[in-house]
């Protein structure tokens, strides 16, 4: 069905289609619309999930953990300080191998209070064992949320998935949305280690180094298998519903000499910048990174690369720029832009390409090259 929706409402609509057993909900700007819309679905009888209005995000994830281990599908949504407050349980969910799906509406971190888009919140969770996907349109928010359940629940993955969408620039903007009837694309969840009172086990007890090490390796092994599962799920989704996704979304990259790499809405904005640059004769392309964990293999040989980070690791550098440098060996031009919701237009992105100087860092809106 074709409709109009915000990014938040698209996520809620996908959750309705996925029919979780339990949803734990706590409000935080700019995520709140997701849990409000889900509450409406439940109140109207359109969704039969148990809706737990928890008293904190730490408890939201703890409740999802307790529900997930019974073998039921679970969902929660958060943002920024909420995500940071639940950090301990974010680790726990992955370590416990529970296929929880969470929408994270990317927002900056205080002080000062700032509710606008930034990726620092998601990156602060990058080492927890969660799969992380970043989306750029309302439609993609919907599709990625539906696929997240299938990927997380795949027996070769059994890890939680975080669907990231930019605060306001995606969560609150209205675009067309085509909803689907999910059918058997998403079969009932099967958790091999679900609690069974007939087969009592200790879950997460004291564990010595030898066993603990094996469990850690097992998470990494699943992370290494995940790209294959993601590709299979995205291929099946494309065949069934006609929309195709991959680890990156490439725009005019085939013959490009210089690539812009960014996440989320900035990555989409870069496509317009590429058109502007192409009109000037600059052979530019946009490679919007979708999956951040597991980090995909990228072939960037022989091209200049401009990486836009809407985040910063203090005392180190842009998280995305450094990830690309360490994974591909290229020396990108690292642009730090959009912090705290700073406006970054396609003209600005075109300027980043025009001024690119490999191996340097540029703070957009402060004092230029540093």
């Amino acid at each position, binding site marked *: 069905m074709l409709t109009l929706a915000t990014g938040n409402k698209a996520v809620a609509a996908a959750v309705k289609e996925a029919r979780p057993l339990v949803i734990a909900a706590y409000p935080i700007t700019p995520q709140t619309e997701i849990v409000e819309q889900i509450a409406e679905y439940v109140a109207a009888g359109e969704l039969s999930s148990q809706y*737990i209005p928890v*008293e904190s995000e730490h408890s939201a994830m703890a409740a999802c953990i307790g529900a997930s281990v019974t073998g039921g599908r679970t969902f929660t949504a958060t943002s920024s300080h909420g995500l940071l407050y639940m950090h301990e349980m974010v680790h726990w969910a992955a370590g416990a191998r529970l296929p929880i799906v969470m929408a994270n509406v990317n927002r900056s971190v205080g002080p000062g209070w700032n509710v606008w888009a930034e990726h620092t919140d998601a990156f602060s969770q990058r080492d927890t064992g969660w799969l992380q996907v970043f989306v750029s349109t309302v439609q993609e928010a919907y599709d990625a949320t539906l696929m997240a359940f299938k990927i997380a629940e795949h027996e070769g993955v059994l890890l939680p998935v975080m669907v990231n969408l930019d605060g306001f620039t995606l969560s609150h903007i209205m675009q067309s949305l085509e909803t689907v009837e999910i059918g058997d694309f998403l079969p009932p969840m099967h958790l091999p280690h679900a609690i069974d009172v007939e087969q009592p086990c200790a879950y997460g007890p004291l564990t010595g180094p030898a066993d603990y090490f094996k469990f850690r390796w097992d998470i990494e092994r699943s992370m290494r298998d995940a790209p294959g599962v993601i590709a299979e799920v995205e291929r099946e989704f494309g065949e069934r519903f006609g929309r195709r996704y991959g680890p990156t979304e490439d725009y005019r990259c085939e013959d490009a000499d210089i690539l812009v790499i960014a996440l989320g809405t900035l990555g989409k904005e870069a496509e317009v910048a590429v058109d502007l640059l192409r009109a000037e004769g600059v052979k530019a392309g946009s490679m919007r990174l979708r999956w951040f964990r597991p980090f995909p293999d990228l072939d960037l040989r022989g091209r200049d690369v401009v990486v836009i980070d809407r985040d910063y690791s203090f005392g180190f550098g842009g998280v995305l720029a450094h990830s690309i440098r360490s994974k591909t060996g290229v020396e990108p031009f690292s642009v730090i832009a959009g912090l705290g919701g700073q406006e970054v237009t396609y003209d600005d992105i075109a300027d980043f390409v025009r001024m690119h100087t490999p191996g340097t860092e540029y703070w957009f809106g402060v004092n230029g090259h540093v």
Partner: protein
Amino acid sequence: MTEIRKEEFILKCTSACAGCGGSLCLRYVLKAAGPDTVLVVPACCTSVIQGIYPATAVNIPVYNIAFAAAAACASGMSSAFRALGRKTNVIAYAGDGGTVDIGIQALSGAFERGTDFLYICYDNEAYGNTGMQRSGATPLGARTTTTPGGKPTTKKDLDRIVEAHDPPYMATACSAYPLDLYKKVKRALGIPGPKFIHILAPCPPGWRFPAEQTVEMGKLAVKSGMWVLYEREYGSLTISAPSKAAMRKPVPLEEYIRRQGRFRGITDAALTELRHQADLNLRRLTREAEGIC
């Protein structure tokens, strides 16, 4: 007379200290709850007592969870089980630190939401698992590793905090009175909604008394009036038989205090204050039981 189930759900050779009051409580809690039960355990002595992976000394599923998260995890689990049409008992089994301090927000939230579960706080009045640091439940004057001169403030009144949530059932118990505990757990599990039992669990290494005196120490706590056994069902309070007997002929508080190394060197002022608090608590409960308040 109540017949206590013969079946054991705590197997022999746990990692508990000699004379552990907490594992004694757990034994009777699980006998009362039976096999269709999941225990949700935050960081506490029971995290250790249950054994090291892949072995376990507990013969029902135990879900271990982070320190602050027991009640929230149990909330999710209970909701999921009920949605699946299963009656499985969900029991959060947490120490005093995980309840009165770091876990109190999750506890309050779960009770306010009316979660169908039983929350048990087994209280040894300090962070036992990490080697006896003071908790909010440590009594006035007690020495711990972080209150080497004796705790300068009084024990947080957890029961009145829980009472403020108006749960359908709440009770106190003590490891020295297993039959009373057994009946209370049975009673609690027969009632829908959030239930709470606060169990005093004397701790020989923490309280510094000989390991063979755990039961005796628990009895002295009740007989001296320092710990009052009662249950409150749908707002109606009944003082339990052992405490009723103690009220008729109380043991002097000093007998309880002087036998514990943690109270060594307690000041007269602190002792007077402890006695005052115990009297106040007993008076408040008695008046409520008599329908005066």
